[in-house]
């Protein structure tokens, strides 16, 4: 059985304009720039898989999903979604895909309650009244929206709106679902609800999900992570592999015995924090077998110690800042 999504060597450039200088008439002195939004990206998604597309702002995530959903056409490469070309067969493929655009491009009618949009979706996708009733009941329970779906959309909180956006995108039970940053600005209970719904929909109906996010916490719901940086794929694998790939250090916390300050011990690595009787170090994973560490943790002057992994957010933050320090290579392709 072929994959649900196949992206092969996809590139996409955009024309942008930049003022050459400042001043009152600078808008008339602009130069055209070609920004490489996607640069030879390849990956695939199996049927029933949940994949998180991770990357910071401007990494190419949104361009990737707009290409996958047929809104944009790649300059080079090939995209197949459920066996179809999403650009050429846009109207046909929309019957089998669902897209949640987050808060940026809402699908709910602002002045009407979400239930009106749900009924509109029912008719647009040709869902029978019986199926509609069953599915709506299922989503109301799953996303806990019984008290909100008949209220005017503009009166709902962002979290409530996002849950209803999700229903509007999924009522036709698509085979493949794309969610573009669905949890941005959403409170914790709503975020948990959305994540639970994604897992449940996959389990019950075998839906395939591609979820773009730069909220690291979201990737816990994913089977696999694809990471983009400046239009290029820099990672494709499981969460543990992501941690190992980008982890630069591990954390060593040492608590010294009463009256001991830690002076006299040879310690390497970077001091993250220090207070009387305690020290927190960032050490390289390769240092775990070092003699200085063995001596430190086996000393009777040390009451307790703990070695832990830094959070994924910290790992990625360090990775991004190191990329930035190295310079902005190849963001801008060429002046024309």
């Amino acid at each position, binding site marked *: 059985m072929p994959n649900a999504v196949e992206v092969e060597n996809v590139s996409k450039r955009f024309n942008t304009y930049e003022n050459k200088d400042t001043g009152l008439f600078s808008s008339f002195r602009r130069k055209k720039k070609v920004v490489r939004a996607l640069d030879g990206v390849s990956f695939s998604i199996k049927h029933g898989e949940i994949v998180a597309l991770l990357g910071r702002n401007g990494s190419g995530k949104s361009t990737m999903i707009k290409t996958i959903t047929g*809104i944009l056409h790649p300059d080079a490469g090939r995209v197949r979604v459920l066996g179809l070309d999403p650009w050429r067969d846009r109207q046909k493929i929309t019957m089998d*895909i669902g897209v949640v*655009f987050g808060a940026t491009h809402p699908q709910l009618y602002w002045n009407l309650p979400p239930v009106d949009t749900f*009924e*509109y979706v*029912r008719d647009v996708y040709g869902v029978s009244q019986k199926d509609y009733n069953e599915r709506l009941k299922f989503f109301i329970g799953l996303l806990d929206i019984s008290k909100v779906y008949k209220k005017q959309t503009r009166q709902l909180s962002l979290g409530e709106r996002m849950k209803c956006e999700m229903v509007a995108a999924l009522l036709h039970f698509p085979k493949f679902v794309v969610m573009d940053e669905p949890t941005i600005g959403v409170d914790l209970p709503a975020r948990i609800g959305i994540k639970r719904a994604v897992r449940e929909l996959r389990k019950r109906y075998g839906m395939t999900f591609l979820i773009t996010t730069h909220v690291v916490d979201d990737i816990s719901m994913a089977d696999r992570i694809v990471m983009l940086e400046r239009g290029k794929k820099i990672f494709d694998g499981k969460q543990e592999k992501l941690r190992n790939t980008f982890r630069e250090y591990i954390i060593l916390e040492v608590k010294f015995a009463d009256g001991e300050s830690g002076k006299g011990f040879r310690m390497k690595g970077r001091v993250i924090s220090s207070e009387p009787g305690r020290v927190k170090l960032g050490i390289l994973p390769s240092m775990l077998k070092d003699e200085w560490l063995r001596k430190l943790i086996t000393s009777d002057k040390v009451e307790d110690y703990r070695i832990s992994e830094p959070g994924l957010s910290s790992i990625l933050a360090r990775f991004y800042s190191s990329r930035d320090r190295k310079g902005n290579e190849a963001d801008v392709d060429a002046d024309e």
Partner: protein
Amino acid sequence: MRPMSMQTNKLIKYRALFRISFKDLLTWGWEAVLSSLMLMLYAVIAIIVWIAIYSFTGVKSINGVGLTSTIIYFAIISALMPFLSWSNTVDRLSSDIRDGDIASSLIRPMSYYFKIFFEGVSGSVFNLAVSIAVIALVIHFGGLTPSVYTYAMFAFYFIIGFLMAELLGFIIGSLAIYLTDIYGIMVSINWMITIIGGGMIPLVFFPAFIEKVLLLTPFPFLAFVPAATLSGVISVGESFGLAAIGLAWLAALAIIAYVMWIKLKTRINAVGI
């Protein structure tokens, strides 16, 4: 040929779109009615201006059109204004492009081109009720006795005018992909309709050769032609003679709108949304 069920599904889709757009409009209730009435105010001003002109100059008629006929003409214009307004389509389309909300429409299994059209229809149906009520009052109190042919020609130009307004709105709105601010263009087109379309001066008041030239443009079909037909400012025969020009412009605008749609898609693809 497509199977009947597919055609039925399409009808259901666009009916659903019409329904929700109309319902959305109704949430504004009295604000929407007020907006329609404000558009009519413009023609009321024209009536006041022409009463002043007839009174000041002391003429009984201009090119055979008396004050009463002029007042009736502008009363009909006031009824047409809300229905033949094209600025809502421009607003919808341009904001969709500027804010990137067009993406939300492109992921639905329907043509964006027709989506905009049906949203326009739902908005106009609301105004249609107001227009019909005003026209009925004008016919009753204006003492008009239109023939069946006059009604038929008026209905024909009413529909032609509506379709032209929607297409014009689509074309101007599409320009938002190239221009940050299309307000200036909207104002210019409105002036065209006002001055050379018969919104402020009935075209029969111009010298004959200028009137003939102006009738070759699309703008009179958004004001002068339907209003002059019903008010009797032009005869049914003259009105019938303009049908070919109206249909030709309708076809031309449909082609231009379609080309703009293709350009729009290409441009969205080139610059992103």
